[in-house]
């Protein structure tokens, strides 16, 4: 009998402390970020989908279509086409497609790239209505950015 009475007592006191804790939380400020109105700044090393890097001097993409990234990618997401424009020593990129539906953001391509021509972008809200929208054309995107 004494045992069950003590158990009832400890039980009730544990309920009361539980209520006390949630009440204290009730009056504390909100911790959540109200997303559409406020949004967080992504850290420096954040891994969004990759993007081409522009050569600061000439303004053209650094990539010369050596296809190292294409070979390094585990899921074959990258297809690169390059052509040798006259008046230039090396090839330069003309087509750069990234199939973001299969990319696992592992960074093997960025590491494999010798000339630092691709890096992670800070994009994270990528809503789309069809799968084709996620076959990203990075070359076109770089040009559009250029404008």
């Amino acid at each position, binding site marked *: 009998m004494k045992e069950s009475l003590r*158990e009832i007592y*400890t*039980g*009730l006191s*544990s*309920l009361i*402390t*539980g209520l006390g*804790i*949630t009440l204290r*939380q009730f009056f504390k400020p909100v*911790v959540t970020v109200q997303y559409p109105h406020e949004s967080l700044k992504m*850290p*420096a*090393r*954040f*891994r969004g989908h990759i993007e081409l890097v522009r050569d600061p001097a000439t303004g053209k993409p650094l990539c010369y279509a050596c296809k190292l990234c294409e070979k*390094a*990618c*585990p899921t074959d997401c990258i297809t690169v086409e390059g052509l040798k424009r006259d008046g230039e020593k090396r090839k330069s990129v003309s087509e750069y497609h990234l199939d973001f539906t299969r990319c*696992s*953001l*592992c*960074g*093997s391509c960025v*590491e494999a790239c010798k000339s630092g021509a691709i890096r*992670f972008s800070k994009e994270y809200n990528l809503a789309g209505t069809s799968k084709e929208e996620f076959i990203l054309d990075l070359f076109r995107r770089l040009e559009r950015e250029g404008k």
Partner: protein
Amino acid sequence: MSPSEVIAAPEGQRETFVLNLGPQHPATHGVLRLKLTMDGEFIVRAEPVCGYIHRMHEKMAENRSYAQFLPNTSRIDYLSAMTYTHAFVGAVERAAKLEVPPRAEFIRVITSELNRISSHLVWLGAYLLDLGGFTPLLYAFDDREKILDLLEGVTGARLTYCYYRFGGVCNDVDEAFTRGTKEFVAYMRPRLDMYRALVTDNIILRKRLVGIAPISAETCRKYGATGPVIRGSGVAYDVRRREPYSAYPLFDFEVPNFPEGDCMARYLVRMEEMAQSLRIIEQAVDRLPEGPVMATAVPRVLKLPAGDVAYAVEAARGRFMVHIVSDNKEIPYRVKLRTPSLSNLSLFEEASQGLVLPDAVALLGSLDLVIPDIDR
């Protein structure tokens, strides 16, 4: 009728019906299906049906080079992705005899332990949700957010990190990370006391967990269950102590185990493990040595010597072992991923005999299953 009478009742007498718990069910936390043969609300026989999220990682491993399989390892058990990559990277280093610099080993221990705490916090929230308490989930996820921000600052990812490389880690840890980790340890300790007051000592929770679904150490051994499940049955089996790897022998931490083997014991093991992980992180951050984070002589094309190599780590759910059979080519011949959730779930059929539905849900939650971990 008490549980034992349910099982004892002769076959003919019971009118049973089959209830499908899953694959679409809040209590299974993933696409696991439990075919429960029930008599009223007692479970006569439970048969887990798996395979709904089977992606065949082992076949993928057989047509990818070692470096290309790295992203897969963090997608087997996405809640303790760091430890799973640690196992695969460790196996390759063990076979190729790569020397990992001490700073990289310390960083691996810190990030693995942070990952373990974040995995236990997800378990705590989801388990309380199974038992009907909604609020602790939000508090646990609030704490976990701090860990994810820390790891995101260093690795760039929040869940499936691709941070370890053969021979070290891909980029170094900055001062903000070490300071942030120290702040997190100081912040988390009082939070653990808050969870003890709000949840562990709560009489309703104790009535839900104490003495429910006891599992003996012998059953754990027979089914190969490891991690908090076997530590909840009194066996202090921890891969970090049994097969020491990385820099774990340099840190002192206890392996919590409780003899009762019921849901409460497994719950207390995980809560205590979070405190132990905090101790490890604290020691590791204090003694973080200087130096490179990447081994120098890592061959560009990695070929493992022919034969077998096995490497086991203590993941959040238990012993994760990678067994690579290689035939001296850059693509492995066969990779076996021994996942803890598969063995932990295999004892569910025996442990849930005669339980009531709410207790079966409590048992399922106490096993802390990640379904892709079972199906691979």
